[in-house]
């Protein structure tokens, strides 16, 4: 069934999941002119499929029978930067963080809808295809010009502290993708502050007060409880 012809415009997606029902659902949801789906039902067969197929995106279930999902990520990361999206259940926040810190790009909490899945896949594909980010980021009324370091909300310029700006810029560079607390802390505050999430929380809170219309209902920077932060992108159906 997966043996449809490879055309140049099709993106190859590799699903590594031991549940046949989930593979079946993904197959019918994703197989289209846009995507070509390949399946593996264990960590080992997934690793060899990843090497043989060179997929554009990997969907990886963390609960594989033969091998720890995080180990699968590490092995792939030894030779490839292919985007990896993890499939995991809600309660396993720590697993998700560990997988993201090990090099996974994003995650989806089971059960998930197709809209969410496609949004994640598209963000990952765009990231791997075009490394360069547009110099101007816009999301509804928020506009950030990375060249001029200029942030405006509904056309009115907003003053950010250097740290707030750096944080916003980092999120823009990874727009649509989740960043863990540790990843953000390391890049903005340095390795020494890696274990001090409260610095990050205070800065996020201040930043939201400046760029969100209602900081209690953030529309730009969303919190993924127990995992990290994500900058929403216009048109993103999440």
């Amino acid at each position, binding site marked *: 069934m997966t043996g449809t012809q490879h055309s140049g415009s099709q993106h190859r997606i590799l699903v590594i999941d031991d549940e046949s029902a989930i593979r079946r659902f993904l197959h019918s949801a994703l197989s289209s002119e846009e995507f070509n789906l390949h399946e593996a039902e264990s960590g080992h067969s997934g690793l060899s499929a990843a090497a043989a197929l060179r997929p554009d995106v990997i969907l990886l279930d963390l609960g594989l029978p033969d091998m720890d999902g995080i180990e699968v990520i590490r092995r792939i990361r030894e030779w490839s930067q292919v985007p990896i999206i993890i499939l995991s259940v809600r309660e396993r926040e720590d697993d998700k963080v560990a997988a993201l810190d090990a090099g996974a790009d994003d995650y989806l909490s089971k059960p998930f809808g197709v809209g969410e899945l496609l949004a994640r896949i598209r963000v990952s594909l765009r990231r791997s295809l075009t490394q360069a980010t547009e110099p101007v980021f816009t999301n509804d009324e928020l506009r950030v010009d990375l060249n001029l370091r200029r942030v405006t909300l509904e056309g009115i310029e907003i003053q950010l502290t250097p740290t707030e700006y750096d944080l916003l810029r980092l999120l823009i560079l990874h727009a649509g993708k989740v960043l863990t607390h540790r990843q953000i802390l390391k890049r903005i505050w340095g390795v020494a502050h890696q274990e001090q999430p409260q610095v990050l929380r205070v800065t996020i809170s201040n930043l939201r007060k400046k760029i969100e219309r209602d900081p*209690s*209902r953030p529309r730009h920077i969303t919190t993924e*409880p127990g995992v990290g932060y994500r900058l929403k992108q216009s048109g993103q159906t999440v």
Partner: protein
Amino acid sequence: MNDATFRKFLINVHGVDVNFFRAAYGYLFSFLLVAAATLVCEFIRPYLVPTNMVMVYQLAVVIAAVKLGLRPAIATAFLGVLAFDFFFVPPRLTFSVADKEYLVTFTGFFVVGVIISSLVAKVREQSLEQIRLSRQAEKARVLQAQENLERALLNSISHDLRTPLVSITGALSALQEKSDRLSSQAKQELLETASDEAERLNRFVGNLLDMTRLEAGAMRLKIELCDVQELIGCALSAMESRLGNRTVSVLLPPGLMLIPLDMVLMTQVLVNLLDNANKYAPVTSAIEINASATSDWLVLTVADRGPGAPEAELTHLFDKFYHVQIPEKAGGTGLGLSICKGIVDAHGGKIVAKNREGGGLVVEIVLPVTAQSEDE
């Protein structure tokens, strides 16, 4: 001998030791009883003929029978005869007996002693049996109560699991089998039903898992300093589709400090409270979230304009599987609030429900502002 069998051997030796000591203790005590009786007799010797001293020994036998059981009592009787003979029957301080009539006294004393012993032992055993029986009855009663509760839980759970499954299966089979005869609007409605119910099922399973983890003590808090506004934001975002157009007002004091809490679990608490308010309060009424803090406590409240709850039931709202009598549509499992309580308790906080002035329910969460030392 390998390690395991050696350990077993030691346990056996130990077990034998314990039984041996218990028995030895019984016989030692009968010896002491006889010695005490002998001392008493020595004091009264100037005033009584030896035959009456048998009464004192008989008392020792009765005490032994009540306190120690059959065998030590018989031993007491036997020792009693010997002591009586040795110390008091002339010629004294020998076992020989000058007056052969004392042999009748000895026999009588011993026989009566044995009879008393066995009678007392029987009574003693009966009363022990009675205690055991009443303990068993108590245990059975507790088990029965537990069983009733479990049956109620099981009924409730299976009802809540099955109801959405019925709708999902029904909708899907309609689409599968009657697809060509359904209008596109009907198809859309069926799909929406199935997907709403699947979401409900997912939430219920999530609650059930949370409850199980709380009960098993497997819920580990991951306490971090958190922003209360962010916490509320997460809960509102999780509730977004369920809240629809309902107004939710958020009132926070400016400059609220970071509070040590488990973000994921506390978000769940707020989601459950909002979900409850959303279910019970009229669609047009607003839900209000308020936060305030003193130097020791953070107070978070979620208030609605629903029917509230009878005063007597307020404290039971957080009991497992408790439903206030509310029209059917609200449904729900009665798990949500007990999960809230479990999580808040684990934070060293308190959660209470009150009726609001002007109608409605307000649930108040009080959390310590300084981190609780967590016993891992």
